[in-house]
């Protein structure tokens, strides 16, 4: 049992735990915290896979910005305990089995797919990690247009959010 395995299993456990908590918690803020936990542990897994930059971005943007937004909204609307209504019989009876089936099926397939058999020497550390410089080359040369497109998308999103949230006089 070597270090990467330990790190992996700890983080995986935390991630799954967070996901379950997200489902089971009735207090929205708890769900938010659980999701943050998931994200952080995923970030660690990225480190393990040698994607340092992505890990950092994951924490900064997801945990640091998006989830803060969520927490804010929860505080603002001060969303209380979730009421467990069951108007949708379909969701009540079909949802869980389907979800479970999907989980098991996907997991099984992933475990036995060819690509899955490939092995990664994924350990956090500069030696095997992706050079951020190469990533930036990809981002600003190969994928320059999508990058610009996303930036425009962000701008539009900001405007949209402003317009929506603005108190209409």
């Amino acid at each position: 049992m070597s270090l990467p395995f330990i790190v992996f299993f700890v983080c995986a456990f935390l991630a799954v735990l967070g996901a379950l908590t997200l489902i089971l918690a009735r207090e929205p803020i708890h769900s938010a915290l659980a999701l943050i936990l998931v994200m952080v542990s995923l970030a660690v897994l990225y480190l393990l896979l040698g994607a340092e930059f992505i890990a950092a971005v994951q924490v900064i943007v997801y945990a640091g910005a998006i989830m803060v937004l969520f927490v804010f909204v929860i505080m603002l609307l001060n969303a209380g305990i979730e009421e467990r209504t069951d108007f949708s019989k379909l969701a009540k009876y079909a949802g869980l089995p389907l979800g479970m089936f999907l989980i098991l099926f996907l997991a099984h397939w992933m475990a036995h797919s060819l690509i899955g058999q490939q092995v990664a020497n994924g350990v956090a550390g500069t030696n095997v990690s992706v050079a951020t410089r190469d990533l930036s080359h990809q981002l600003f040369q190969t994928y320059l247009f999508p990058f610009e497109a996303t930036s425009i998308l962000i701008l539009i999103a900001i405007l949209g959010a402003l317009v929506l949230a603005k108190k209409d006089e």
Partner: protein
Amino acid sequence: MSIVPISYYLVLSAILFGLGIVAFVFKRNIITIFMAIELMLNAVNLAFVAFARAHDQLDGLVFVFFVIVVAAAESAVGLAIIITLYQNRQTLNIERINLLKF
């Protein structure tokens, strides 16, 4: 240095994705449903990174980057919508917001 098979990561991402779907179906609070979506996105990102590592290509990481950006935009707008929705309906329970029907 010892190694973790890619399939482990894939299985984990599959599980997280499935849990996200379950949450998506089972939560009643719109905000939480939103979080479920974010969870699914994260699972997909994990798969992306794992594949990128498996093929030693950076494209996967770039994809993750884009996914994150789009997720940011989407959550910004979505939350704004939720706020206005709440101001109009005084509820966050998605089952009580069912005017759009036949």
